[in-house]
């Protein structure tokens, strides 16, 4: 018996589930981990207005109790068989699921900062990623790995993004605003600390983002240096020394810092790797799924009955993810009702 399957239990998958269930369609939600929510759970407060992420997740707490929702946790889909309709999904446990439509909401994974060796992640303890920083912000307690309160923190933009040397030439969009958000939150927690942001460009694309940037300088005295980090090294006392160029002045800059926060970009999740040679669905050079077009079919794939929702097609903010999921839900509902979508 064929099912309506959503692969991925993050907010995109949850939003599509919510809307489909609302319309009376039974949904099978497949999630590879043991819990729902996906990547948003890594973020304590969301830009631009510091809304706690729990506020978003609240909307989905009733879902697991819904009788029409079949929830398959700890299940990873290894392969999709496109050779006949309805499609067949194969999980890593060997279970085969007959599915039509399929909504791919497999989301993203974070760039592994160990690949950017010269920044020192995994080598020097004081180097952390923005995900780890967010955890400390959630706990309202920022300390260096040696238990001291940092007197200086440097945020490095564009780690694993816009970088041919790690194979990700695209911009991950959200890291700049996240950096400013975290810089402000850090300053609130450590009013005496000096906070720096090392950027190449500041992508303040949202309506209120520029305002937040101004605020960061006005109210929180965040220092912005236009220069890309080249190397990190460590002193005997475990403080870090970073080297960048202050390009606006035109001289190399050396600075000691207690902590280095790497703004790691978003990458396509492991799920998309099986399509690297385009076995059925198209993947872009960037590794994310390519929707049917970039304008009015961003939730549709090249195959009838296969849809995308959320960051499986590229880096998106929480707001954009939910928006996209809502659009995909509409397409899916039209499809299920047999109408032109």
């Amino acid at each position, binding site marked *: 018996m064929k099912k309506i399957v959503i692969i991925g239990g993050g907010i995109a998958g949850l939003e599509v589930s919510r809307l489909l269930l609302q319309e009376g369609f039974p949904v099978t939600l497949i999630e590879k981990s043991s819990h729902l929510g996906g990547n948003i759970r890594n973020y304590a407060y969301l830009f631009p207005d510091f809304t706690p992420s729990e506020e978003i997740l609240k909307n989905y707490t009733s879902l697991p109790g819904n009788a029409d929702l079949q929830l398959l946790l700890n299940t990873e889909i290894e392969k999709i068989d496109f050779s006949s309709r309805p499609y067949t999904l194969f999980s890593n446990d060997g279970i085969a699921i007959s599915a039509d439509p399929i909504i791919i909401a497999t989301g993203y994974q974070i760039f592994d900062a160990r*690949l950017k*060796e*010269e920044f*020192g992640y*995994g*080598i020097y303890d004081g180097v952390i990623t923005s995900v780890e920083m967010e955890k400390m912000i959630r706990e309202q307690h920022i300390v260096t790995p040696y238990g001291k309160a940092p007197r200086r923190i440097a945020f490095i933009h564009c780690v694993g993004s816009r970088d041919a040397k*790690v*194979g990700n030439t695209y911009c991950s969009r959200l890291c700049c605003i996240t950096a400013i958000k975290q810089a402000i939150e850090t300053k609130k927690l450590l009013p005496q600390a000096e906070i720096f942001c090392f950027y190449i460009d500041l992508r303040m694309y949202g309506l209120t983002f520029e305002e937040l940037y101004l605020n960061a300088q006005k109210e929180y005295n965040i220092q912005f240096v236009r220069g890309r980090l080249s190397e990190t*090294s460590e002193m005997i006392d475990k403080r870090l020394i970073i080297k960048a160029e202050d390009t606006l002045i035109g001289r190399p800059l050396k600075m000691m810092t207690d902590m280095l926060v790497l703004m790691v970009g978003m990458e396509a999740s492991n799920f998309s790797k099986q399509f690297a040679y385009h076995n059925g669905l198209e993947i872009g050079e960037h590794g994310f799924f390519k929707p049917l077009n970039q304008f009015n079919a961003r939730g549709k794939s090249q195959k009838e009955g296969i849809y995308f929702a959320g960051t499986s097609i590229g880096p998106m903010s929480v707001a954009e993810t939910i928006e996209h999921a809502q659009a995909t839900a509409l397409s899916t509902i039209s499809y299920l009702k047999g109408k032109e979508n």
Partner: protein
Amino acid sequence: MIRDPNFQYPFLIGTIFLFAYLTIRVILWYIKLSKYDKLRFIHFWKTKSVWAAIRDSVADGLLHLSIFKKNPLLGYMHMSLAFGWFLLIVMGHLEVIADRHSLNFPFYYAVFYRYYQPHPDFAGAKVFGAVMDFLLLIILSGVALAIIKRIRKQIFGMKRTTRLKTFDKIALSSLWLIFPLRLLAESLSAAYYHNGSFMSNTLGEWFIQNVRVSAIYDLSWWLYSCSLGFFFIALPFSRYMHIPTEIVFIFLRHAGIMPKKYWNSYAQIQMYSCSRCGICLDACQLYEAGVSNVQSVYFLQFIRNNENVDKSLFGCIICGRCQEACPVHINLNDLRTALRIKASKPLTFSYEYTQKALQQKAGIIYFAGCMTHLTPQIKFSMRRIFDFLGEDVWFMDEDKSICCGAPLMLAGQYDSASQLIQKNTELIMASGAKTLILSCPICYKAFREDYVLPGISIKFHAVYLNEMIRQGRLPKINLGFKTIYHDPCALGRGSKIYDQPRYVIDSYSQRIRLKKEKAEALCCGAGLGAINLPIEAKNKVTFEAMSYFARFKPNALITACPLCKKTFARDRRIPVLDIAELTARAIDEYVNEQKKTVRETRLIES
């Protein structure tokens, strides 16, 4: 019955010209050798190396055994032409001696023997006749194969053949025509006189029945003579100059003459020794990357024809794969370097500004190298290893690093590099150290070949680690994953270090053997030898190499070069580790296990 005594003139003219040209050429080459090289050459004749030279001349020059070992069909093709023709000449002369019982005859007599001797009736004439026909048949089979190779090179297992210039094509055609024309002429003689053997007599029969032999008889011998004459005149200006030059090269090489860092007589001899066989083309990874004007055969061709070599000269990675594959064993890397030095001589660099790092005293110096600063895991791992071994090591270039000079030298800037070499040498000698350890094979090669550090042992870190394991100072422990080792160009082909890194890797992991390894290892594509190679070509080389590795499905790719590591890591398909990192992990694992054992012991005791 000699009816036309003039047809041998084209052949005579050609031969005399060739002989004169070669004599003058070889004399000039000899004169232009350096004083020491001349002495070496004179001394050589009194040594046993002469026999080695003769042996190599036969093995490589005639039999083409180097090619035969790798590709039997291709080897046979070259062998049949070279050795076949050699035997034809020798046997031909022996045939005439057997006939006339004296050495008193013009040398062209043997070449056109079947014309001049309609009735060979000396003892063994039939045997000789058969041998000559057989040899001609062998050569013709070689010519046939050569023609097929031009059309369908895949049959020979070659993906590419040399793009020949027009003149080379003409010379090639004349060479290929010589033997069919000889067959034609001898068959026509056999048609009249039955003085041939199984092949020529048979063909002669056919001719006499189907063709007016008298009309084309003289013409056929003229044509044969002309093709020979033309070929000999064309030879010095074509790829076939390699025939005599290769012998000279082999002898000079056995005399101990080495390639130098400038374009000299020996370099020119090597250039002429290139037969444009095209074997270096298949060895070059740049072909798949869409670059086809940089390979050694074309680069040598450009120099010989006095064309602009800039793009061709500086676009090569100097990975050494062509040098390994070359059946004539030409020192391709050295030739290229010599020309790079010449081409970039007008450019100058000045390093007076380099402030020396704070001088320290130490027993062991670790020189990380420029690239290693961008792969600090290697530095960090070396530190861990030195800590574990309890060695006090001075990280010479931790701050204010001065480049070892290798990238400058690869660009031909030896003079400029000497300034950096001097600064680094001062630092090293003043430290009192006895050992210098390098973790970058490019630096290692520079230190070994271009630095003079008396009393200091220069070790590559993989070799040092190998020693430490063998001495029992580093543990052997199975980390439980499958690895592949990539031989860096500078370490493998460049320094001939293949086994020590493997021993280290085998001590810690399960190493999967590759077919393209050691001297045949692939290049990562990022070599500093490539100055003006487009990034797209480099990326393609990296991609293809990784695709090859990925087939073996290892858990990790182990390499011994920071540049290789950074380059392969961007591909993302396989995690990349340096040998030092692997060792450091093993040390951590070992230490953890020791702690566990101690804890367990304490538990049992309590």
